[in-house]
């Protein structure tokens, strides 16, 4: 629908009452905006962020091992650059490419400077963004075609390698998961949980539709029990009960226990989203596939599930965003995710009372992460949808 420029005018100033409302609301907005701005540039003390930037980013990760995080970031950046370049080559790549590149450059230069990162770290970040943009530029050629075939595998291997790099062991000094923290920890546990929960959720959804009664009952029980309990209670169960029940020393690290609880929790919700998708696929699709001789597993994997996941994509994207936000509950059970580490900073007498500055910063960070997820899922939707007329 095309909207004439007059429509907005009519909606805002159509009648006397409308005009009055519009002006009143506008005045309110100006007043509130002025208040925030005068606080931000006046009485707010942003030093708390500058002084704790490193803590908020990586938590209590040992300084001497910091290079491992940089190495991982470098690998992820390279992969992202190559993938971006290849995706850009597709004819229906939906994102506005130049604006995205510009945003990266601006944030890589501006943010570290605002947060007073050391000069070396600033240079490193600028180097990484250059790497990203250069790879994006170059990776249209033949050598990346081979990558196109294998990129799921390459990403997977990099991810597992990254986990090992962070955790250590096998030659590297081990860093216990309880010492991870901050933004890195939040992103890590969110991505790990999602990677585990998606296949688990699909299996639960399929099990719930299974003809085998026992399988179906178990899946229904798992889904409904999990959905019937608040996440925070499940997290407490995972942190406390599992510790009591397992013999001394055998309980997995608290981080892994939390990951397990988050995974099962997310899987139950993802399963319902997938089930909605499965229900929307007409029986005729299955019948056609079976009549061609495809087995029931092939029918599910090649015909029904790809369509169902596409239908479920908006709901799945929403669940991913919820999960990212749910990780803040980990701060309540004593883990140092982004919110947890912020609370520990605020507990330091040096920074007493700097709540507004820190929490506003966190809100912006979370908003950016969630917005990225939302944009990603919208882009995927668009890309898949153009297959139809």
């Amino acid at each position, binding site marked *: 629908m095309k909207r004439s420029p007059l429509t907005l005018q009519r909606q805002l100033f159509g009648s006397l009452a409308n005009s009055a409302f519009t002006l009143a609301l506008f005045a309110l907005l100006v007043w509130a905006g002025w208040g925030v701005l005068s606080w931000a540039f006046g009485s707010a003390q942003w030093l708390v962020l500058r002084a704790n930037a490193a803590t908020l980013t990586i938590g209590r990760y040992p300084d001497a091992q910091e290079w491992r995080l940089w190495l991982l970031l470098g690998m992820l950046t390279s992969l992202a650059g190559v993938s971006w370049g290849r995706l850009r080559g597709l004819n229906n790549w939906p994102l506005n490419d130049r604006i995205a590149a510009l945003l990266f450059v601006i944030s890589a230069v501006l943010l570290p400077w605002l947060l007073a990162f050391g000069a070396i770290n600033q240079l490193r970040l600028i180097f990484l963004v250059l790497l990203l943009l250069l790879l994006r530029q170059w990776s249209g050629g033949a050598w990346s075609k081979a990558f196109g075939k294998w990129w799921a595998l390459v990403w997977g291997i990099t991810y597992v390698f990254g986990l090992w790099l962070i955790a250590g062991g096998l030659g590297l000094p081990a860093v216990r998961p309880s010492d991870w923290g901050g933004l890195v920890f939040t992103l890590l546990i969110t991505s790990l949980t999602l990677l585990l929960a998606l296949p688990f959720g699909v299996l639960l959804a399929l099990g719930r539709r299974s003809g085998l009664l026992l399988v179906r009952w178990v899946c229904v029980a798992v889904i409904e029990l999990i959905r019937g309990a608040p996440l925070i209670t499940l997290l407490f169960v995972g942190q406390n009960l599992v510790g009591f029940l397992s013999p001394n020393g055998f309980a997995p690290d608290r981080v892994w226990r939390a990951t397990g609880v988050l995974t099962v929790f997310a899987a139950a919700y993802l399963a319902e989203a997938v089930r909605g998708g499965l229900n929307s696929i*007409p029986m*005729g*699709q299955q*019948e*056609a*596939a*079976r*009549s*061609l*001789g*495809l*087995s029931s597993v*092939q029918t599910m994997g*090649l*015909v029904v599930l*790809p*369509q169902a996941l*596409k239908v479920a994509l908006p709901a799945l994207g929403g669940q991913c965003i919820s999960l990212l936000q749910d990780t803040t509950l980990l701060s309540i059970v004593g883990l140092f995710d982004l919110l947890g580490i912020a609370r520990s900073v605020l507990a330091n007498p040096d920074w007493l009372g700097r709540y507004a500055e820190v929490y506003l910063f966190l809100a912006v960070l979370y908003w950016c992460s969630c917005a990225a997820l939302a944009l990603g899922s919208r882009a995927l939707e668009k890309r898949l949808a153009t*297959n*139809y*007329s």
Partner: protein
Amino acid sequence: MQPTKQLMVQAKGVQKWYPNGFHVLRGVDLEVFRGEKVVIMGPSGSGKSTFLRTFNALEDYQEGSIVVDGMELNNDLRNIDAVRREVGMVFQQFNLFPHLSVLDNLLLAPTWVRKRKREDVIQQALSMLERVGISEQAYKFPGQLSGGQQQRVAIARALCMEPRLMLFDEPTSSLDPEKVREVLDVMRLLALDGMTMVVVTHEVAFAREVADRVILMDEGQVVEIAPPDQFFNHPKHERTQRFLAQIL
């Protein structure tokens, strides 16, 4: 001429009840011979589609027996899979896979069921599309095609498995009138090639021209089986006369 007529389908006393207790097939017998074209007609609710769908075990049945190409359709899942590999089916709603291109719709079963290499079957698939007259649409998606084109793709998709028997379940019933002909033309060609066909349809002209025998089903039973000339011009059974009076 063949020395002896070979049986392709042999259905004996097939009975089926729906889970709600409705007795949909009440002892149906039918023999279809190799190369034969059989058209099944009947009012809606007569069980004709259900009967057709028992031939590749999309519907089960409780009593009687069905043997397709020498394989009995019973609870043996291997037999069911084997029969489905040899029997192609075309549906009223086309049932193309909307997430795959036209070409991939055709290649799915040969590559996954017959385990053949994509490069080896791609030529066959393209020539199959040419045969049904839509080779220029190979890289489009089903949603971009008209109903008639979609149904022709569905026929080509079934043919790519090189079936010995083709089942058509009201293949033109959900098409715009002007698209019916292009689908029937493809089916005529297929009949000329000697394909064994069982067709549930209301297209009288097609039945007259192509069928070796026409069947009237009503209330889960076969009422009359006759060559088309006799079926349409001198029906023996009173129920057939009434049915024809309504559709002709």
